[in-house]
């Protein structure tokens, strides 16, 4: 071995040792900082709290679990669903397992965990409802990475070796991110990045201010609205996503009197500037209208349905209604959606309730461009889903 080779080896050993030490020290520092920055975001996440409560859910009597995104968390009321099922002679304890921004890859891991949990509890659910939110499975959504940090942390919580292999096969980048979370104790730098960015560059005020003389402007001045808004902000700033087992994830309206409720709805619904802004964001980052689907996420959705079918044959797929005024798919979007539904039908045989073009809903039933606010409609959506599930279950029995 030449002198150069000796020097090379010595230098390489030194470089490796110093590099590993520096990296370990940096990771340790980063973990401490991230824990301060991101920990609350993770622990207050409704999804995270749901995972903590899985053993309770699996031990419940005749449980029904509605898995999905914010469309489920805001649009599906377990108590209404239970009452409607009861009128059909079916008794169940329903849980709203929807959380903001959940994508099919996260739903898949959650369903795997549910399967394990039900097996441990030696229990079988009465039904599992899988919500398919079309715009949460588009290429645009993946590219934008908006839901990435939160969902990466959720995945990390649910990941085991099999799941990691599944993630790695689908995307080496995602697998790398999960590995990073492993080193960083589950706190995502991407989430920290979002928090810091939001602090440095807060959202600008709404571009169009309401005139204090128009109707909405006047309603905004009423003491009832001001009080409701204060409660709403307190709810948001407190623990907005808390998973309360007693309420099973039902959404609470900040309005406390019928008059407050009436003002609240009118102001929220007629804020066209806000609706336009939100719709524009959904079109840009989620491809809300044309729905160019990401094949890997559709594969994950189908795997989720199969996983749920392995828990119970009473697995149903629900596609929630679209706001007719703001979010109806284009002809291309409809074609893409129908193609996915046909694939789901073909590959899983799961019954599907497609409410996209349902005439039961008007723009007034929606809190914004996409979310049905079940609390405002006396549980209209939960009632429709209950009738359909009830009919399907009765037919089977």
């Amino acid at each position: 071995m030449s002198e150069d080779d000796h020097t090379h080896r010595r230098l390489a050993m030194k470089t490796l040792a110093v590099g590993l030490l520096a990296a370990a020290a940096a990771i340790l520092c980063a973990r401490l900082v991230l824990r301060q920055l991101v920990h609350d975001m993770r622990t207050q996440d409704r999804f995270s709290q749901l995972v903590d409560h899985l053993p309770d859910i699996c031990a419940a009597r005749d449980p029904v679990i509605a898995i999905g995104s914010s469309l489920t968390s805001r649009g599906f009321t377990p108590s209404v669903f239970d009452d409607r099922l009861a009128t059909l002679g079916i008794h169940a304890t329903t849980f709203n397992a929807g959380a903001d921004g959940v994508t099919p890859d996260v739903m898949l891991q959650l369903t795997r965990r549910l399967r394990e949990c039900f097996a441990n509890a030696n229990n079988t659910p009465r039904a599992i409802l899988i919500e398919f939110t079309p715009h949460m499975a588009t290429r645009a959504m993946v590219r934008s990475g908006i839901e990435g940090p939160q969902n990466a942390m959720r995945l990390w919580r649910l990941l085991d070796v099999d799941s990691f292999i599944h993630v790695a096969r689908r995307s080496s980048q995602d697998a790398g991110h999960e590995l990073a979370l492993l080193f960083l104790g589950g706190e995502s730098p991407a989430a920290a990045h979002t928090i810091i960015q939001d602090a440095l560059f807060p959202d600008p005020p709404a571009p169009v201010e309401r005139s204090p003389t128009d109707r909405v402007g006047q309603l905004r001045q009423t003491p009832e609205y001001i009080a409701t808004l204060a409660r709403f902000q307190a709810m948001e700033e407190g623990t907005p996503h808390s998973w309360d087992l007693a309420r099973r994830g039902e959404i609470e309206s900040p309005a406390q009197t019928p008059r407050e409720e009436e003002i609240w709805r009118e102001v929220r619904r007629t804020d066209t500037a806000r609706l336009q802004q939100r719709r524009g964001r959904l079109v840009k980052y989620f491809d809300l209208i044309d729905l160019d689907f990401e094949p890997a996420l559709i594969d994950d959705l189908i795997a989720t349905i199969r996983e749920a079918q392995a828990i119970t044959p009473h697995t149903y797929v629900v596609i929630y209604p679209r706001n007719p005024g703001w979010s109806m798919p284009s002809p291309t979007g409809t074609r893409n959606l129908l193609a996915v539904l046909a694939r789901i039908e073909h590959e899983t045989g799961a019954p599907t309730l497609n409410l996209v073009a349902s005439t039961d809903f008007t723009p007034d039933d929606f809190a914004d461009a996409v979310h049905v606010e079940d609390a405002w409609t006396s549980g209209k959506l939960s009632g429709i889903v209950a009738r359909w599930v009830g009919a399907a279950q009765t037919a089977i029995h």
Partner: protein
Amino acid sequence: VLFNTTLFAGFFLAFFVVYEFVARSRGRLWCLLFGSLIFYGAWDVRFVPLLVGTALLDFYIARAIQDEPLRAQKRRLLAISITANLGVLAFFKYANFALASAYGLAHVLGVTPAMVPTLDVILPAGISFYTFQSMSYTIDVYRGEFAARDHPLEVLTAVSFFPHLVAGPIIRASTLLPQFERIKPLPWESVRRGFLLVATGLLLKGIADLLADPVNLAFSAGHHDRIDAWTGVLAFAGQIYCDFAGYTDMAIGIALLIGFAIPPNFNLPYLARSPIDFWRRWHISLSSWLRDYLYIGLGGNRRHRYRNLMLTMLLGGLWHGARWTFVAWGAYHGLLLVLWHVCGTRWPYLATVHIVSRALGCIVTFYLIVIGWVLFRADTLSQTLDILRDMHQPSGTAIAAEQWRALLVVIAALVLGHAISALQRPAFDKTPLRWMFWPAVVVLFATGIVLASAGRVFLYFVF
């Protein structure tokens, strides 16, 4: 694979162990080549043959040039190499641009084809960088600056050298090939500097990502308040500098860790005193490549100097991407360079080094560069004009505190970006603060990890 990901960290660790402990001399070259091809193939394995093919073609043409006694024949061979390299680049990068432009022209002439024709091609990562690198090899052999290599291994490794493969800097064959002849260990000081560059690069990338929000806001549709427009455009100036300088710092640092020296690509560009000075400080590897292989090839300062300058900058603009805004950006910088050269010739006293004129030069140059960035970032020429109008219109409403704060944050980020780059200078190493080196590396690295946004793509990957 992006440098700021766990995946790359794992790849590099495995590569380093194999490279340093298993291989020897020539074996190290093989190791480098395979490592680089795995690195590139991880992005899209289908384009590995294109990369290898490009390098092999230039290897064989360079050998033929060297063996060929006739000057005219040598020139023909060189023309084949340049045509092949530029042809590949044109097909993958500019075919759709050319088709869309032809469609637009037909539309203007009153002919309206049914639809815009497009080719379904993916732009291979780093193609603009590695074709230029590969071309420089044949040109250097043609010019007799060094001998063609006997074995393709060195040329293949130089072109595919992973630290600079996908987003530069553009390293000429003449820089790397002599280092490949006998791979010698670099002194510990170089390795130390490598660690510092990786850490600062990671941090710069984090700062660049933080600036994305105001940039996206300013360059979104609709009109913006004057202060928001300025905030967005200054944020882009910071973002593109921190992003690209961060990437190249990491590339240079990684190369140093495995024993190769790559020249710097940036030298505090926003402190430039003139547009001429700016191009000596910004993306130095590209500007010097264009100067040596294009500008001088066109005749340089000997004849048609200003025409050569304009052509070089136009093509430099087009190199950045297939869009008319890039062409306009190149033309804009060409005009600035011509103007400064004309003024410098007519009024040489303007170039005085008086501190006032230096400061004024910095401010004027920075303003002109920032205006140029609007062209660079905007999607269309009309959007450029809209943003320039927004930047220079009187403010209609009172400026909110949040707007001032955002502007100050952006300015602070710009200053911080340059301060971090200044920290890398060897002079810093000679100060009494030398003991702080390793703690600083750890803190910079940790901050980079915290600010990293899950492998957000580097801006220069798209070029």
